[in-house]
Structure formats: structure tokens, C-alpha cells
């Protein structure tokens, strides 16, 4: 790899010198060019890396050593423009530059796409910050027959230009060495501020591309997944493989192994024996190992029932993310999403929601208009089950029948569509046009996949397990103080009357308000204990699926949409959940359905 520093700049005084605070370096660039990979290489910290635009929605910071100097490196969301009509995440990046929150800009560019990168260079140059241009993925560019004259580019722009293959660490040392030579870019003045002609001319002059035959297989694969005749069967196969891996291997095989083989066989008996022996107070013993015990209930749910599914899901989901497959689903779903006031791009937050609704709620920032963001947040809260919840759904209904599973998903999908359709008509505002970049299809690298999956599992353990334990403690207190009986009695008209469920389900719904999956785990146990009939299980799970996902998700909705909208969403979603459950209950009774 090479680094090109224009001779005149190399003599200029270095930007790096001893200073009171660390130098702030911000990574800026078009979406999906590898900013997060370079961030990871510079700082040793991991920022989530995927193969689709919009993976980084907030900013991540980390420390890097450049020579003897400490730098704060900021990873920013990908931007296509810094001027004009901007999306929410483009504003985030623009503010970093405009508010002088950075001392130095590293623009990361996809070497194949010099023209687009240069339009951004011109807009970034307007902030007069010292810059370095990184041409990343030069290996892929060469395979496609694209070569950029980096030396001439450097002398024309007056900034260092470094070629890298960041994923393999190539060119990173050169990048660090180039930082001291960073300088404000020299861009010829254009009266109307439209740099597209300049970018086009410069790119055409400095880029040689020759026809290449490599990439034929990629093209073939690309065609296969995006054309309906082949793409829809491929989608069906993908879904079936996910079901086999997560629903059967994760939710049944692994759960059985951990729940029976580890918790019921060793941990719970051992904990009970230890408690009996060393803890003289019955209340404390109960708190740890009773029916609502932290270990026997909270920990068992979190580790034995939910964790295996979350882990298997994150693994296969991460693989799909890195392959570049998910954005291609937007082509199929665009027409449907347009009826719901969204466009095909909404497939990204929706599919991400299957991993975690809280993170997906944040990803709605990539959508074009406030109306789209509100509808997407609402639909995520209403109907998209997260992996942890899918776990329990598959665990319970998988054991009953496929028809039960289809009923639940059918009702939820219809409800999403119905609410989306209404929201599109009733909410003010516009939807934006469907314009979406499709990332190249790639074979996912195992290292990134493992790293990402482990981080997500760790995140699940940190985020969900405490809530499970808090929920368990809360139930314990409610139970001991007799309040639980009140809750159950108070919920009876709704739970038993309206939904036709056993009264104990009320406590499960209380758990479901904390986290849907925690509530669903409670249903899992009720159904295993034979307290729920098949139809009751379907009704209870449907209601639970339609609840707001969890406390964390609710807090994120407040952050993204404000308290008023969040409360409105909460009330609306709960109403829809309960009325759908009631409708389902009566429909089952009248039609005499049993699974």
C-alpha cells in the first residue's frame, strides 16, 4: 500500500504536536465504505461492522496512538451529503464538523466510487479542517478493474491520499504516518455549490477502469437473489434454514440441554441445597430459590430458555448482515411498505427488529421523513418480535403445532399491515421516494462474525439479565406482600373474561411489561406445567407479541420520538394487543378451533 503526500504539504508544520487535550480525529465517508473497520484498526475498539449502509447510527469514540500522540477517534454514521436535504444521521455527522468537535477529518472512500467520494470531499472541505483521504477496498476495486492515480489526486487536492485494505490491516500504518501532513483540501470554487461536475471531471481524469471479467459470479448471485422467480424461493429457503437453526436447534435442542441438563440437574438443586443449609431465613431462601427465586426463576429463564435462542439467532443474523443479502429484500417489499406510508428501505429496521427492537428503533434514523420514522417506530413496538421473544414463541408453539405458529404470525403480520395502512392515511406528512444503495454481496468473514456475535451476546447478558432479575425480585415482593393476588384479581376481568385465559396469566403479563420475552418465558413455564391449552397459548402469546417490547425499547422510543408520542404509542399498542387477543379468543370459540 502506498501513501501519497504532496511534496509541498510534507514540508508544512505538522498538525500533531503536544497539546492539552487529545487530538480529535473524525472518520467521515459514504455509507458502507469501511469506516468502522478503520475505526477498529486504529483504536482496537470494536464498532459494529456489517455489510449494509446505516450500521453506525450514533457516534462511537475510541483512543488511538499516532506516534507519541494520543488521539480521540470518532466513528460517524455514513453520509451521502453534508449539504442540502439531509437525513437524521447525516445531521449527526454534519454537526461534528460544523461545531468544530473535530480537529482532523479522515475521509474514508470506497476506491471504486471516487466520483461520489469527491463530491463529499468538496462538501467536507467547506469546513476548512485538515483532511486525509483514504481510498479503502483497493483490492476489490482492482478486481473490478478500477485503478486510481492516488499521487496525482493527492497533489490536486493538497491532502494526503492513502490506499488501504482495512479489513486486512493493509495501509493502516501509512494512514497513521500521513496524519501529521493533513491539510485543508483545495477544491476549485464553484459558484452554485454544485460540485458534481467537478467530481465527475476529476474522477474521470484520475481513474482508469478497464473491463474486468471477475465479479461474474457475484453478478449471477446478485441477479438470482433480486429476481422474483429465483429470489422468492431463495428467501423461503433462507427463512427455513433460520427456523431450523434457531427454532429447532436453538429453541429445542439447546434449551433442553441447558434447562434440563444444567439448571434442573445441577444448578437449581445445588443452589437449593446450599440455601437450605446456610440461610436460616425462609424469606431470603425463597428470594433466591423459591418459585419466584432469583436463581430458580430469573437466572433459569435468562440463561436456559432465552440465551440459546438469542445466541443462535445472532450468529445466523450476523452472517446474513455481512453477506449483503438483507438490503436486497427491500426490492421485494417496497410495494408493500409503500402502502404503509414507508418505502422499501424500512425493511432494514424491521429485519433488525427481529434481533432487537431497541436497536432497530434507533436505526429508524436512516429513514427519510419524520412520518416514516414514526410509523416504523410504532410498527416495531407493535409487532416485530425480537430474537429473545421469538425464542419463547418457537419454544411454546413449536411444541403445539405448525398451524398454531402460522396463526400467531398471520395475525401479527395482518395487524402490522392494518395499523401501518391506517397510520399512512391518518398521520400527517409524506413518505420519501425509495432510493436505496445495494451493497456488494460478500462471503462473510468469520472473525468479524464471531466478534459481533459474542459482543451481542455479552450485550444481551448485560442488558436483559438484570431486567430479568429485577422483574423476578418485583414478582417476589408482589407475591410476599399479597399484592400479586390483587393484581391477579384486578386483571381477572380482562385476562379471564376478555381473553379467556387462566387468572395466573395476569402475573405473566406484568412480567411482559418489563420485557416481552420475560413474560413469554413465564408463559413457557405455564404451558409446560399444563396450565394453558393450545388455543390459550396462542391467544396469550399473540397479546404478548403485540405489547411494547420492553422497558429499554420504551426508553428508546422516548429518546427518538419524545415522551408524548411514546406514551401515545404505549396506550395504542396495549389497546391493539388486548383487543386483538379478545377477537382471537372469540373467533377460536365460535369457530371451534383447536390446535
Amino acid at each position, binding site marked *: 500500500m502506498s501513501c501519497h503526500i504532496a511534496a509541498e504539504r510534507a514540508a508544512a508544520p505538522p498538525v500533531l504536536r503536544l497539546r492539552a487535550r487529545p487530538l480529535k480525529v473524525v472518520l467521515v465517508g459514504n455509507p458502507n465504505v469501511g469506516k468502522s473497520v478503520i475505526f477498529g484498526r486504529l483504536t482496537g475498539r470494536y464498532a459494529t461492522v456489517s455489510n449494509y449502509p446505516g450500521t453506525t447510527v450514533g457516534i462511537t469514540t475510541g483512543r488511538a496512538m499516532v506516534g507519541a500522540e494520543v488521539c480521540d477517534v470518532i466513528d460517524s454514521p455514513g453520509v*451521502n*451529503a453534508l449539504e*442540502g*436535504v439531509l437525513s437524521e444521521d447525516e445531521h449527526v455527522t454534519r454537526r461534528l464538523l460544523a461545531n468544530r468537535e473535530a480537529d482532523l477529518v479522515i475521509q474514508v472512500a*470506497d476506491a*471504486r*466510487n471516487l*466520483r*461520489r467520494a469527491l*463530491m463529499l470531499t468538496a462538501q467536507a472541505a467547506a469546513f476548512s479542517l485538515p483532511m486525509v483521504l483514504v481510498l479503502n477496498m483497493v483490492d476489490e476495486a482492482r478486481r*473490478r478493474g*478500477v485503478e486510481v492515480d492516488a499521487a496525482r489526486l493527492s497533489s490536486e487536492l493538497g491532502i494526503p491520499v492513502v490506499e488501504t485494505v482495512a479489513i486486512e490491516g493493509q495501509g493502516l500504518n501509512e494512514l497513521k504516518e500521513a496524519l501529521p501532513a493533513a491539510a485543508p483540501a483545495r477544491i476549485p470554487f464553484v459558484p452554485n455549490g*454544485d460540485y*458534481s*461536475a467537478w*467530481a*465527475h471531471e476529476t474522477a*474521470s481524469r484520475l481513474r482508469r477502469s478497464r473491463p474486468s471479467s471477475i465479479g461474474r459470479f457475484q453478478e449471477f448471485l*446478485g*441477479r438470482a437473489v*433480486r*429476481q*422474483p422467480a429465483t429470489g422468492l424461493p431463495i428467501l423461503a429457503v433462507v427463512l427455513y434454514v433460520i427456523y431450523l437453526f434457531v427454532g429447532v436447534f436453538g429453541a429445542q435442542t439447546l434449551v433442553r440441554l441447558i434447562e434440563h441438563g444444567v439448571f434442573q440437574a445441577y444448578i437449581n438443586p445445588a443452589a437449593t441445597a446450599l440455601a437450605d443449609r446456610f440461610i436460616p431465613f425462609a424469606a431470603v431462601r425463597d428470594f433466591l430459590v423459591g418459585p419466584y427465586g432469583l436463581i430458580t426463576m430469573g437466572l433459569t429463564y435468562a440463561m436456559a430458555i432465552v440465551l440459546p435462542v438469542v445466541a443462535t439467532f445472532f450468529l445466523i443474523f450476523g452472517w446474513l448482515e455481512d453477506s449483503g443479502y438483507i438490503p*436486497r429484500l*427491500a*426490492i*421485494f417489499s*417496497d*410495494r408493500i411498505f*409503500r402502502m404503509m406510508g414507508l*418505502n*422499501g428501505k424500512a425493511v432494514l429496521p424491521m429485519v433488525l427488529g427481529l434481533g432487537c427492537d431497541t436497536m432497530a428503533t434507533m436505526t429508524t434514523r436512516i429513514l*427519510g421523513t419524520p412520518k416514516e420514522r414514526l410509523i416504523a417506530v410504532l410498527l416495531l413496538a407493535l409487532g416485530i418480535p425480537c430474537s429473545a421473544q421469538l425464542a419463547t414463541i418457537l419454544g411454546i408453539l413449536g411444541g403445539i403445532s405448525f398451524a398454531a405458529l402460522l396463526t400467531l404470525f398471520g395475525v401479527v403480520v395482518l395487524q402490522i399491515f392494518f395499523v401501518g395502512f391506517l397510520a399512512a392515511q391518518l398521520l400527517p406528512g409524506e413518505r*420519501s*421516494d*425509495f*432510493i*436505496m*444503495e*445495494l451493497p*456488494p454481496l460478500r462471503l462473510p468473514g468469520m472473525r468479524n462474525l464471531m466478534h459481533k456475535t459474542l459482543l451481542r451476546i455479552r450485550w444481551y447478558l448485560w442488558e436483559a439479565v438484570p431486567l430479568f432479575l429485577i422483574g423476578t425480585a418485583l414478582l417476589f415482593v408482589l407475591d410476599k406482600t399479597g399484592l400479586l393476588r390483587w393484581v391477579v384479581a384486578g386483571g381477572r376481568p380482562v385476562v379471564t373474561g376478555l381473553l379467556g385465559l387462566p387468572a395466573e396469566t395476569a402475573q405473566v403479563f406484568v412480567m411482559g411489561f418489563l420485557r416481552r420475552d420475560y413474560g413469554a418465558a413465564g408463559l413457557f413455564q405455564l404451558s409446560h406445567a399444563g396450565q394453558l391449552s393450545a388455543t390459550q397459548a396462542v391467544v396469550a402469546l399473540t397479546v404478548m407479541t403485540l405489547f411494547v417490547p420492553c422497558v429499554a425499547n420504551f426508553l428508546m422510543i422516548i429518546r427518538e420520538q419524545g415522551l408524548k408520542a411514546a406514551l401515545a404509542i404505549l396506550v395504542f399498542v396495549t389497546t391493539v394487543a388486548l383487543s386483538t387477543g379478545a377477537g382471537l379468543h372469540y373467533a377460536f370459540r365460535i369457530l371451534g378451533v383447536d390446535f
Partner: protein
Amino acid sequence: MLSGSSVSTFEHGRRLVSLGVGERGVVVRVLRDNPARAERLKALGVTPGARVRLLQRFPGFVFECDQTELAVEPSVARAILIEELG
């Protein structure tokens, strides 16, 4: 140079929406009837002089612009005026 008043000249010209699968063209300009759309297309590199190749028409339009693969709805493909290449 192309100016705003020359819309009518191009109304009968070729648009991306009228290309067949596999056909190539060069972007002449992007209609500005919807400025937000035009801005976004520009940011993605759909600007005068860019080479395009249509890859798919149904269920959505997919085309290659330079080295970028883009998926758009029909109304967007209608707003992109092109000159056909052999």
C-alpha cells in the same frame, strides 16, 4: 448548458424507466420536480455524465450507476433522463 426552461426539450427523450434490462445509457440530467429526490440521487452519484446500466425492472427498478448498485421505485426511474448508449 441545460437550464430549467429546457424541460420540454427532454420530455420526449429517453428516461431510465424506458430502458430494457441490460441496456446502457449516460445520465443527461435528473428532473427537479421533487428537489429532495434529486438531491439524494445526486449524492448517490446519479449526476450528468454518469454511466448507467439497467439490471431489473420488476418488482422494482435496479440499475448500476458507475460502481454503485441502486434500487428505486418507478417514479424515481422516470425522473432520470438519459441518452442511450449502444
